[in-house]
């Protein structure tokens, strides 16, 4: 039984069957990649996991509990953090403040009224945030206005914001899109390192096969809302159905 169990999930948008009978099991402490052509329903699947969308039918169990019917912040508090396909950060805040917010959420829960205490008296949380920034090589940018950073930096910041929460399950939606090659390799190294050091399960959506084959232990191929195959990277590489799905898209 995996830490994440998706059973018979269906989701329609009007006439479009975005997800059709999706079954997915992600084992604890593994990295599971979900690949597939554009419009296959990969982001929609993630949206169903974090409470952004509610599936029409089916069940989603995380850590033995259903996530359906819970709000996004409750699901995050259960231990799921997500990086979005387009970076979602607090653009009006500095990099350091961006990092402190998930730290507060982790320590104090979904609401706490510290109206008088100073942010800068929270030395414990600051240390945590700085350490994480160090790990993603962004410590020198900590006082920067986050909206003014490059897209790649925004992604790294968003990933750092998720990682600092020490989630049980990390969901990554194309985390290296828009990154320079060097940053992509750094990201791969970072994720490998994080996986060795902590007990973390990763589900990653990625078009960059270099990233997928560097990280994933299992791969699910999604096409037109339905999983085609699920297997190890070695077996996926030469799989005829996979080639068909990708070529079918190109044709």
């Amino acid at each position, binding site marked *: 039984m995996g830490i994440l169990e998706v059973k018979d999930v269906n989701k329609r948008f009007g006439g479009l069957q975005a997800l059709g009978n999706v079954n997915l099991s992600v084992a604890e402490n593994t990295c599971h990649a979900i690949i597939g052509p554009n419009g296959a329903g990969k982001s929609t699947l993630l949206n169903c996991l974090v409470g952004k969308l509610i599936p029409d039918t089916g069940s989603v169990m995380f850590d033995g509990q259903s996530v359906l019917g819970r709000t996004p*912040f409750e699901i995050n508090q259960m231990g799921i953090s*997500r990086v979005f396909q387009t970076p979602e950060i607090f653009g009006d*805040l*500095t990099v350091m*403040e961006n990092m402190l*917010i*998930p730290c507060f*959420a982790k320590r104090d829960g979904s609401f706490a009224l510290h109206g008088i205490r100073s942010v800068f008296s929270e030395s414990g949380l600051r240390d945590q945030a700085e350490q994480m920034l160090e790990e993603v090589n962004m410590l020198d940018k900590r006082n920067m206005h986050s909206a003014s950073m490059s897209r790649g930096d925004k992604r790294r910041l968003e990933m750092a914001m998720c990682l600092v929460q020490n989630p049980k399950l990390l969901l990554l939606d194309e985390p290296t899109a828009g990154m320079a090659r060097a940053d992509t390799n750094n990201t791969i190294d970072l994720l490998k390192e994080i996986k060795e050091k902590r007990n973390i399960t990763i589900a990653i959506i990625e078009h960059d096969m270099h990233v997928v084959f560097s990280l994933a232990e299992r791969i699910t191929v999604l096409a037109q809302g339905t999983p085609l195959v699920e297997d190890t990277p070695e077996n996926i590489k030469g799989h005829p159905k996979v080639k068909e799905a990708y070529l079918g898209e190109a044709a």
Partner: protein
Amino acid sequence: MFGLDKKDASLLLIVAVLVAFAPFFLNPFPEGSGWAQFNAGYPDLMQRFVIFGIFAIGFNILFGLTGYLSFGHAAFLGVGSYAAVWMFKLLSMNVIPAIALAVITAGAFALIIGYVSLRRSGIYFSILTLAFAQMSFALAYSVLTPITGGETGLQLALDDPRIFGGAATEGNIPVPGFFGLEMRDSAQLVLGNWVFTFNVGYYFAAIIMLLSFYLSIRIFRSPFGMMLRAVKSNQQRLNYTGLNPRPYTLAAFVISGMYAGLAGGLMASMDPLAGAERMFWTASGEVVLMTILGGVGTLIGPVLGAGMIKYMENIISKINSDILHSWFAFLPDGLEDLVVTLIYPFIGKGWHLTLGIVFMLVVIFLPGGLVQGGQKLAGLFGRKKAQEPKNATTEPAE
């Protein structure tokens, strides 16, 4: 100092000094001179400066930090005034219980109105608050006349059943006070042609304003303040980071409602009456203008905006055509009439027109409000600027 960093502490100190010496600053022109009508150092107006300053400081905690634009905050100010007057009628003429009840009642109202209105955001939130405020106005104006005094407003009467000090006031309606200090008491200092007035009510309200200002700085710099800015910046990210935006915005709404109640209670303490017009939608709009004019989301901006609007309301509206004629008497007759005719629509009752023009100019050329204007001026004179990044942690500080 007081848990503030250096920059904030010096800002607080500057404001404290300005407020303490306001009776001097605001009366720069000698009595009897033609300029004396521009003097603002009389108790009634100075009280308004600080009381509306409090109102705007509180409003800025909601609007400036979370970006939720309430069009109904005057309702809380009105509720605070009514609560305070009832306290004077029933308990005692001491302002402390009156102000305490004003804050609590306004907070309770804000909790209810905020709980409902915050189910929507953006324009729908604004309209909901506006609807609630107009409902409150209508209730106060007619339906709840026994409680609010309806059209005439709520006033003290000789036969008020006051628990403390009810008997001691035969024949005279008592005045609000602070343990023996009457709010309307004033001392005057005459220096040559200058007359400076030091009013108890003003200094009482000023001290409360400084405390409110201090509290608002602390809120701005707290984790709570940071969450409120995060609400404004990206609610989606906040949700997926495990934080529930709703209670944060509701807390900000209630806090700003309590500030409004405090302002209302102080108004009633200076002059113990309360009327429904304090809840009218134009009064709600005024605090929005104050905040935007001064600088949304800045610490001192709302106070500046409140001061500017109240100054224009009281000073420009007092200029009449006779005064204009005396100013331009040096011009040839025909030209004098022409100039006076041109300016006349902008003075007296037309002060709103002047305000409108000033507001437009500020919004177009200084979107950051008067504070941005101040920063630009400071930049022109080449102060610092080069060694900025040292403490570039937060938004513009002053």
